[in-house]
Protein backbone atom coordinates (compact mmCIF):
# COMPACT_ATOMS: atom_id res chain seq x y z
CA UNK A 1 0.00 0.00 0.00
CA UNK A 2 1.56 3.33 -1.01
CA UNK A 3 1.37 6.57 1.01
CA UNK A 4 -1.43 8.03 -1.08
CA UNK A 5 -3.65 5.00 -0.56
CA UNK A 6 -2.96 5.00 3.18
CA UNK A 7 -3.92 8.67 3.35
CA UNK A 8 -7.14 7.99 1.46
CA UNK A 9 -7.97 5.14 3.81
CA UNK A 10 -7.40 7.36 6.88
CA UNK A 11 -9.64 10.00 5.31
CA UNK A 12 -12.48 7.58 4.74
CA UNK A 13 -12.16 5.97 8.16
CA UNK A 14 -12.17 9.40 9.86
CA UNK A 15 -15.21 10.49 7.92
CA UNK A 16 -17.06 7.22 8.50
CA UNK A 17 -16.35 7.22 12.25
CA UNK A 18 -17.49 10.85 12.68
CA UNK A 19 -20.63 10.29 10.62
CA UNK A 20 -21.46 7.20 12.67
CA UNK A 21 -20.94 9.12 15.92
CA UNK A 22 -23.21 11.93 14.68
CA UNK A 23 -25.92 9.45 13.65
CA UNK A 24 -25.58 7.62 16.97
CA UNK A 25 -25.96 10.92 18.85
CA UNK A 26 -29.06 11.75 16.81
CA UNK A 27 -30.59 8.38 17.67
CA UNK A 28 -29.69 8.71 21.35
CA UNK A 29 -31.09 12.26 21.43
CA UNK A 30 -34.34 11.20 19.79
CA UNK A 31 -34.76 8.40 22.33
CA UNK A 32 -34.11 10.87 25.21
CA UNK A 33 -30.92 9.12 26.27
CA UNK A 34 -28.68 12.16 25.92
CA UNK A 35 -30.43 14.60 28.22
CA UNK A 36 -28.46 13.79 31.37
CA UNK A 37 -25.10 13.72 29.58
CA UNK A 38 -25.74 16.95 27.71
CA UNK A 39 -27.16 18.71 30.76
CA UNK A 40 -23.77 17.97 32.33
CA UNK A 41 -22.13 19.97 29.51
CA UNK A 42 -24.86 22.58 29.03
CA UNK A 43 -24.93 23.68 32.65
CA UNK A 44 -21.33 24.89 33.03
CA UNK A 45 -21.54 26.41 29.57
CA UNK A 46 -24.73 28.24 30.58
CA UNK A 47 -22.69 29.80 33.41
CA UNK A 48 -20.13 30.91 30.79
CA UNK A 49 -22.95 32.25 28.63
CA UNK A 50 -24.38 34.24 31.56
CA UNK A 51 -20.96 35.65 32.42
CA UNK A 52 -20.30 36.63 28.79
CA UNK A 53 -23.78 38.12 28.49
CA UNK A 54 -23.17 40.42 31.49
CA UNK A 55 -19.77 41.52 30.15
CA UNK A 56 -21.27 42.14 26.71
CA UNK A 57 -23.87 44.40 28.30
CA UNK A 58 -21.08 46.43 29.93
CA UNK A 59 -19.15 46.69 26.63
CA UNK A 60 -22.29 47.53 24.65
CA UNK A 61 -23.22 50.35 27.00
CA UNK A 62 -19.61 51.59 26.93
CA UNK A 63 -19.76 51.65 23.12
CA UNK A 64 -23.02 53.55 23.14
CA UNK A 65 -21.61 56.17 25.51
CA UNK A 66 -18.97 57.63 23.17
CA UNK A 67 -21.45 57.70 20.28
CA UNK A 68 -23.63 60.11 22.27
CA UNK A 69 -20.58 62.05 23.33
CA UNK A 70 -19.53 62.45 19.72
CA UNK A 71 -22.83 64.18 18.97
CA UNK A 72 -22.24 66.44 21.92
CA UNK A 73 -18.73 67.27 20.69
CA UNK A 74 -20.09 68.41 17.35
CA UNK A 75 -22.45 70.80 19.10
CA UNK A 76 -19.94 72.16 21.61
CA UNK A 77 -16.29 72.48 20.69
CA UNK A 78 -15.01 72.85 24.18
CA UNK A 79 -16.16 69.64 25.74
CA UNK A 80 -14.12 69.00 28.87
CA UNK A 81 -13.64 66.01 31.12
CA UNK A 82 -16.40 67.07 33.47
CA UNK A 83 -18.97 67.05 30.69
CA UNK A 84 -17.68 63.62 29.66
CA UNK A 85 -18.34 62.37 33.17
CA UNK A 86 -21.79 63.93 33.26
CA UNK A 87 -22.70 62.44 29.89
CA UNK A 88 -21.56 59.02 30.98
CA UNK A 89 -23.46 59.35 34.23
CA UNK A 90 -26.49 60.39 32.25
CA UNK A 91 -26.12 57.29 30.07
CA UNK A 92 -25.97 55.10 33.13
CA UNK A 93 -29.07 56.78 34.55
CA UNK A 94 -30.89 56.26 31.25
CA UNK A 95 -29.90 52.60 31.36
CA UNK A 96 -31.24 52.36 34.91
CA UNK A 97 -34.43 54.16 33.85
CA UNK A 98 -34.85 51.66 30.99
CA UNK A 99 -34.41 48.76 33.39
CA UNK A 100 -36.81 50.40 35.84
CA UNK A 101 -39.42 50.83 33.10
CA UNK A 102 -38.97 47.19 32.13
CA UNK A 103 -39.47 46.09 35.73
CA UNK A 104 -42.54 48.33 36.08
CA UNK A 105 -43.97 46.75 32.92
CA UNK A 106 -43.25 43.28 34.27
CA UNK A 107 -44.81 44.21 37.61
CA UNK A 108 -47.93 45.57 35.93
CA UNK A 109 -48.15 42.43 33.83
CA UNK A 110 -47.95 40.30 36.97
CA UNK A 111 -50.62 42.44 38.63
CA UNK A 112 -53.06 41.80 35.77
CA UNK A 113 -53.13 38.10 36.59
CA UNK A 114 -52.19 37.74 40.24
CA UNK A 115 -53.39 34.13 40.25
CA UNK A 116 -50.51 32.95 38.12
CA UNK A 117 -47.22 32.15 39.75
CA UNK A 118 -44.39 33.67 37.79
CA UNK A 119 -40.63 33.50 37.86
CA UNK A 120 -38.57 36.31 36.35
CA UNK A 121 -35.65 35.23 34.16
CA UNK A 122 -33.00 37.01 32.10
CA UNK A 123 -32.38 36.07 28.49
CA UNK A 124 -28.74 35.02 28.20
CA UNK A 125 -28.57 33.79 24.61
CA UNK A 126 -30.25 32.99 21.34
CA UNK A 127 -30.36 29.68 19.49
CA UNK A 128 -27.22 29.51 17.33
CA UNK A 129 -29.10 27.56 14.69
CA UNK A 130 -30.90 29.83 12.20
CA UNK A 131 -33.26 27.01 11.24
CA UNK A 132 -35.00 27.12 14.63
CA UNK A 133 -36.19 29.95 16.87
CA UNK A 134 -35.40 29.69 20.57
CA UNK A 135 -33.76 31.61 23.41
CA UNK A 136 -31.80 30.57 26.49
CA UNK A 137 -32.78 31.91 29.94
CA UNK A 138 -30.85 31.91 33.20
CA UNK A 139 -33.34 29.88 35.29
CA UNK A 140 -33.52 26.11 35.25
CA UNK A 141 -34.93 23.03 36.95
CA UNK A 142 -33.35 24.03 40.29
CA UNK A 143 -35.54 27.15 40.23
CA UNK A 144 -38.65 25.05 39.66
CA UNK A 145 -38.87 25.37 35.89
CA UNK A 146 -40.31 22.40 34.03
CA UNK A 147 -40.68 21.53 30.35
CA UNK A 148 -43.85 22.95 28.78
CA UNK A 149 -44.27 25.95 31.08
CA UNK A 150 -45.50 29.09 29.25
CA UNK A 151 -43.13 32.05 28.97
CA UNK A 152 -44.26 35.65 28.52
CA UNK A 153 -42.70 39.10 28.43
CA UNK A 154 -44.20 42.32 29.72
CA UNK A 155 -46.06 42.68 26.42
CA UNK A 156 -47.32 39.18 25.81
CA UNK A 157 -46.69 35.50 25.19
CA UNK A 158 -43.19 34.59 24.09
CA UNK A 159 -43.16 30.78 23.94
CA UNK A 160 -42.79 27.76 26.16
CA UNK A 161 -40.02 25.87 27.93
CA UNK A 162 -38.55 23.23 25.67
CA UNK A 163 -35.65 21.89 27.71
CA UNK A 164 -34.13 22.55 31.13
CA UNK A 165 -30.79 22.09 32.84
CA UNK A 166 -30.32 22.79 36.58
CA UNK A 167 -29.44 26.46 35.94
CA UNK A 168 -30.73 27.34 32.48
CA UNK A 169 -33.61 26.60 30.13
CA UNK A 170 -34.30 26.76 26.44
CA UNK A 171 -37.52 28.47 25.34
CA UNK A 172 -39.04 27.66 21.96
CA UNK A 173 -40.49 30.92 20.61
CA UNK A 174 -44.01 31.28 19.22
CA UNK A 175 -42.45 32.23 15.87
CA UNK A 176 -40.72 28.85 15.48
CA UNK A 177 -42.36 26.76 12.78
CA UNK A 178 -42.84 23.87 15.21
CA UNK A 179 -44.91 26.05 17.56
CA UNK A 180 -48.68 25.49 17.62
CA UNK A 181 -50.78 27.29 20.23
CA UNK A 182 -54.58 27.22 20.62
CA UNK A 183 -55.61 30.86 20.16
CA UNK A 184 -58.77 32.95 20.23
CA UNK A 185 -59.56 36.31 18.69
CA UNK A 186 -60.64 39.05 21.05
CA UNK A 187 -63.64 40.53 19.22
CA UNK A 188 -65.00 37.85 16.89
CA UNK A 189 -64.29 35.11 19.48
CA UNK A 190 -63.09 32.84 16.68
CA UNK A 191 -60.65 30.11 17.66
CA UNK A 192 -57.81 28.55 15.72
CA UNK A 193 -54.25 27.34 15.95
CA UNK A 194 -51.47 29.93 16.05
CA UNK A 195 -48.47 28.72 14.05
CA UNK A 196 -44.99 30.24 13.82
CA UNK A 197 -43.60 31.01 10.41
CA UNK A 198 -39.92 30.75 11.31
CA UNK A 199 -37.17 33.18 10.36
CA UNK A 200 -38.58 35.88 8.10
CA UNK A 201 -41.92 34.09 8.10
CA UNK A 202 -45.17 35.26 9.58
CA UNK A 203 -47.15 34.25 12.63
CA UNK A 204 -50.60 33.11 11.59
CA UNK A 205 -53.79 31.63 12.98
CA UNK A 206 -55.04 28.72 10.93
CA UNK A 207 -58.30 26.77 10.93
CA UNK A 208 -60.61 29.72 11.61
CA UNK A 209 -64.17 28.88 10.64
CA UNK A 210 -65.52 30.95 7.73
CA UNK A 211 -68.58 31.89 9.77
CA UNK A 212 -66.47 34.35 11.78
CA UNK A 213 -65.92 37.83 10.44
CA UNK A 214 -62.31 38.42 11.44
CA UNK A 215 -61.23 42.08 11.50
CA UNK A 216 -57.78 43.62 11.14
CA UNK A 217 -56.59 44.96 14.48
CA UNK A 218 -58.35 42.34 16.59
CA UNK A 219 -56.33 41.18 19.56
CA UNK A 220 -55.14 37.59 19.65
CA UNK A 221 -55.20 35.74 22.96
CA UNK A 222 -54.51 32.23 24.18
CA UNK A 223 -57.70 30.17 24.27
CA UNK A 224 -56.44 27.94 27.06
CA UNK A 225 -57.73 24.85 25.26
CA UNK A 226 -55.51 21.85 25.81
CA UNK A 227 -54.46 23.16 29.22
CA UNK A 228 -50.87 23.95 28.23
CA UNK A 229 -51.36 27.73 28.40
CA UNK A 230 -53.48 29.87 30.66
CA UNK A 231 -56.51 31.53 29.14
CA UNK A 232 -56.40 35.12 27.79
CA UNK A 233 -52.66 35.71 27.57
CA UNK A 234 -52.01 38.38 24.96
CA UNK A 235 -50.20 37.08 21.88
CA UNK A 236 -50.54 39.92 19.37
CA UNK A 237 -52.82 41.57 16.87
CA UNK A 238 -54.33 40.58 13.51
CA UNK A 239 -52.67 42.49 10.66
CA UNK A 240 -54.01 40.60 7.64
CA UNK A 241 -56.91 38.27 6.92
CA UNK A 242 -56.75 35.60 4.23
CA UNK A 243 -60.34 34.64 3.50
CA UNK A 244 -61.32 32.65 0.42
CA UNK A 245 -64.90 31.58 0.06
CA UNK A 246 -63.87 28.48 -1.89
CA UNK A 247 -62.01 27.13 1.11
CA UNK A 248 -63.36 25.63 4.30
CA UNK A 249 -61.30 27.77 6.67
CA UNK A 250 -59.73 31.20 6.72
CA UNK A 251 -56.44 32.30 8.21
CA UNK A 252 -55.19 35.49 9.86
CA UNK A 253 -51.67 36.89 9.93
CA UNK A 254 -50.66 38.05 13.40
CA UNK A 255 -48.07 40.52 14.62
CA UNK A 256 -46.61 39.37 17.94
CA UNK A 257 -47.07 41.80 20.82
CA UNK A 258 -43.52 41.18 22.05
CA UNK A 259 -40.43 42.03 20.05
CA UNK A 260 -39.00 38.53 20.05
CA UNK A 261 -35.63 39.60 18.65
CA UNK A 262 -34.73 41.85 21.56
CA UNK A 263 -36.00 40.11 24.66
CA UNK A 264 -34.08 40.90 27.83
CA UNK A 265 -36.30 39.66 30.64
CA UNK A 266 -39.16 37.20 30.63
CA UNK A 267 -41.67 35.62 33.00
CA UNK A 268 -41.99 31.88 33.27
CA UNK A 269 -45.52 31.01 34.42
CA UNK A 270 -44.82 28.21 36.85
CA UNK A 271 -48.38 27.66 38.01
CA UNK A 272 -51.80 28.55 36.67
CA UNK A 273 -55.32 27.23 36.71
CA UNK A 274 -55.85 25.36 33.47
CA UNK A 275 -59.26 25.09 31.80
CA UNK A 276 -61.32 22.35 33.39
CA UNK A 277 -61.43 19.47 30.92
CA UNK A 278 -62.80 16.93 33.38
CA UNK A 279 -66.14 16.88 31.54
CA UNK A 280 -64.36 15.10 28.71
CA UNK A 281 -63.07 12.40 31.02
CA UNK A 282 -64.38 8.91 30.27
CA UNK A 283 -67.31 8.11 32.51
CA UNK A 284 -67.32 4.58 33.85
CA UNK A 285 -70.65 2.84 33.11
Amino acid at each position, binding site marked *: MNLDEAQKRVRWITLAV*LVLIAILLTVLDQTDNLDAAFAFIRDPMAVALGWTSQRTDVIASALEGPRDLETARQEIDILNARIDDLERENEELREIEGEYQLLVDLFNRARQNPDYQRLTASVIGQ*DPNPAVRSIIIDKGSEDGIRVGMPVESARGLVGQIYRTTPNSSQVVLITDSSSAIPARLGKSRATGILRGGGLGGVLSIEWIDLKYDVEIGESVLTSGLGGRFPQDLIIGRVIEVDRREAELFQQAVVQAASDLDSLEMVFVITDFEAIDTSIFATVEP
Partner: protein
Amino acid sequence: MFSSALIAIPVMVVLTIVQIVILPRFSFFSGDLSLPFLFALSWSLLSNVEEGVIWAFIGGLIMDIFTIAPVGGLALTYMGAVYIVNIISNLLPRNRFAVPVISAVVATTVQQLLYILYLRLFGILANTTLISLVQTVLVQAVLIIPIFWSMYFIKRSLRPRPVQI
Protein backbone atom coordinates in the same frame (compact mmCIF):
# COMPACT_ATOMS: atom_id res chain seq x y z
CA MET B 1 -4.47 15.56 12.91
CA PHE B 2 -5.52 14.78 16.49
CA SER B 3 -3.58 17.70 17.99
CA SER B 4 -5.62 19.88 15.64
CA ALA B 5 -8.79 18.31 17.09
CA LEU B 6 -7.64 19.20 20.59
CA ILE B 7 -7.17 22.82 19.55
CA ALA B 8 -10.55 22.78 17.82
CA ILE B 9 -12.50 22.03 21.03
CA PRO B 10 -11.70 25.24 23.00
CA VAL B 11 -11.79 27.32 19.80
CA MET B 12 -15.25 26.03 18.92
CA VAL B 13 -16.52 26.49 22.50
CA VAL B 14 -15.47 30.15 22.43
CA LEU B 15 -16.92 30.65 18.94
CA THR B 16 -20.23 29.08 20.01
CA ILE B 17 -20.45 31.38 23.04
CA VAL B 18 -19.77 34.38 20.77
CA GLN B 19 -22.39 33.06 18.36
CA ILE B 20 -25.04 32.64 21.05
CA VAL B 21 -24.43 35.68 23.24
CA ILE B 22 -22.67 38.40 21.26
CA LEU B 23 -23.79 38.08 17.63
CA PRO B 24 -27.54 38.32 18.43
CA ARG B 25 -26.84 41.87 19.70
CA PHE B 26 -25.98 42.88 16.15
CA SER B 27 -29.06 42.63 13.97
CA PHE B 28 -26.84 42.43 10.86
CA PHE B 29 -25.51 39.02 11.91
CA SER B 30 -28.52 37.75 13.79
CA GLY B 31 -29.57 34.35 12.50
CA ASP B 32 -27.43 34.54 9.37
CA LEU B 33 -23.90 33.80 10.41
CA SER B 34 -22.34 30.60 11.68
CA LEU B 35 -18.88 31.33 13.05
CA PRO B 36 -17.91 27.71 13.87
CA PHE B 37 -18.87 26.66 10.33
CA LEU B 38 -16.79 29.43 8.72
CA PHE B 39 -13.79 28.58 10.89
CA ALA B 40 -14.07 24.86 10.08
CA LEU B 41 -14.41 25.65 6.38
CA SER B 42 -11.42 28.00 6.42
CA TRP B 43 -9.31 25.45 8.26
CA SER B 44 -10.25 22.73 5.77
CA LEU B 45 -9.10 24.98 2.91
CA LEU B 46 -5.86 25.85 4.66
CA SER B 47 -5.07 22.43 6.03
CA ASN B 48 -6.55 19.22 4.68
CA VAL B 49 -9.97 17.65 4.39
CA GLU B 50 -9.51 15.31 7.42
CA GLU B 51 -8.74 18.19 9.78
CA GLY B 52 -11.50 20.28 8.23
CA VAL B 53 -14.03 17.51 8.78
CA ILE B 54 -12.92 17.06 12.39
CA TRP B 55 -13.25 20.81 13.02
CA ALA B 56 -16.66 20.78 11.36
CA PHE B 57 -17.76 17.84 13.51
CA ILE B 58 -16.61 19.47 16.76
CA GLY B 59 -18.08 22.88 15.83
CA GLY B 60 -21.37 21.37 14.73
CA LEU B 61 -21.66 19.20 17.82
CA ILE B 62 -21.05 22.08 20.25
CA MET B 63 -23.63 24.17 18.38
CA ASP B 64 -26.00 21.18 18.51
CA ILE B 65 -25.86 21.25 22.31
CA PHE B 66 -27.54 24.67 22.35
CA THR B 67 -30.18 24.21 19.72
CA ILE B 68 -33.62 22.72 20.10
CA ALA B 69 -33.22 20.72 16.88
CA PRO B 70 -32.08 17.06 17.11
CA VAL B 71 -28.47 16.67 18.26
CA GLY B 72 -26.02 15.62 15.54
CA GLY B 73 -27.71 17.45 12.68
CA LEU B 74 -25.38 20.42 12.49
CA ALA B 75 -22.35 18.15 13.01
CA LEU B 76 -23.42 15.91 10.13
CA THR B 77 -24.29 18.70 7.72
CA TYR B 78 -21.19 20.77 8.55
CA MET B 79 -19.04 17.71 7.83
CA GLY B 80 -20.92 16.98 4.62
CA ALA B 81 -20.60 20.54 3.36
CA VAL B 82 -16.90 20.81 4.24
CA TYR B 83 -16.17 17.47 2.57
CA ILE B 84 -18.06 18.35 -0.62
CA VAL B 85 -16.42 21.77 -0.83
CA ASN B 86 -12.98 20.24 -0.46
CA ILE B 87 -13.65 18.01 -3.43
CA ILE B 88 -14.93 20.97 -5.46
CA SER B 89 -12.10 23.30 -4.38
CA ASN B 90 -9.59 20.94 -6.03
CA LEU B 91 -11.24 21.79 -9.34
CA LEU B 92 -10.97 25.55 -8.77
CA PRO B 93 -7.93 27.62 -9.75
CA ARG B 94 -5.52 28.12 -6.82
CA ASN B 95 -6.53 31.66 -6.03
CA ARG B 96 -6.49 32.56 -2.34
CA PHE B 97 -9.02 35.36 -2.85
CA ALA B 98 -11.64 33.61 -4.92
CA VAL B 99 -11.48 30.11 -3.42
CA PRO B 100 -12.69 31.05 0.12
CA VAL B 101 -15.58 33.12 -1.24
CA ILE B 102 -16.72 30.47 -3.74
CA SER B 103 -16.27 27.79 -1.08
CA ALA B 104 -18.37 29.75 1.41
CA VAL B 105 -21.16 30.18 -1.14
CA VAL B 106 -21.17 26.50 -2.10
CA ALA B 107 -20.65 25.17 1.44
CA THR B 108 -23.36 27.35 2.99
CA THR B 109 -25.87 26.42 0.30
CA VAL B 110 -25.04 22.71 0.61
CA GLN B 111 -25.13 22.83 4.41
CA GLN B 112 -28.47 24.64 4.54
CA LEU B 113 -30.05 22.28 2.02
CA LEU B 114 -28.70 19.20 3.80
CA TYR B 115 -29.97 20.58 7.09
CA ILE B 116 -33.45 21.21 5.70
CA LEU B 117 -33.49 17.59 4.49
CA TYR B 118 -32.19 16.36 7.85
CA LEU B 119 -34.92 18.22 9.75
CA ARG B 120 -37.56 16.91 7.33
CA LEU B 121 -36.47 13.38 8.28
CA PHE B 122 -37.65 14.17 11.80
CA GLY B 123 -40.83 15.85 10.62
CA ILE B 124 -39.52 19.33 11.43
CA LEU B 125 -40.16 22.15 9.01
CA ALA B 126 -36.99 24.30 8.94
CA ASN B 127 -37.47 28.03 9.44
CA THR B 128 -35.38 28.69 6.34
CA THR B 129 -36.86 30.69 3.48
CA LEU B 130 -35.25 31.43 0.12
CA ILE B 131 -34.62 35.02 1.23
CA SER B 132 -33.01 33.94 4.49
CA LEU B 133 -30.90 31.38 2.60
CA VAL B 134 -29.61 33.99 0.13
CA GLN B 135 -28.98 36.41 3.01
CA THR B 136 -27.02 33.74 4.91
CA VAL B 137 -24.97 32.82 1.83
CA LEU B 138 -24.07 36.47 1.19
CA VAL B 139 -23.12 37.23 4.79
CA GLN B 140 -21.00 34.07 5.04
CA ALA B 141 -19.32 34.78 1.66
CA VAL B 142 -18.26 38.23 2.86
CA LEU B 143 -17.20 37.23 6.35
CA ILE B 144 -15.13 34.25 5.33
CA ILE B 145 -12.54 36.66 3.88
CA PRO B 146 -11.29 38.10 7.21
CA ILE B 147 -11.70 34.73 8.92
CA PHE B 148 -9.79 32.86 6.21
CA TRP B 149 -6.98 35.40 6.12
CA SER B 150 -6.57 35.63 9.88
CA MET B 151 -6.43 31.82 10.05
CA TYR B 152 -3.98 31.82 7.15
CA PHE B 153 -1.56 34.07 9.05
CA ILE B 154 -2.03 32.13 12.30
CA LYS B 155 -1.32 28.88 10.47
CA ARG B 156 1.73 30.33 8.71
CA SER B 157 3.17 31.44 12.04
CA LEU B 158 2.39 28.15 13.81
CA ARG B 159 3.24 25.79 10.99
CA PRO B 160 5.71 27.42 8.59
CA ARG B 161 5.69 26.02 5.08
CA PRO B 162 8.27 23.17 4.76
CA VAL B 163 11.21 24.08 2.53
CA GLN B 164 13.07 21.47 0.51
CA ILE B 165 16.84 21.92 0.64
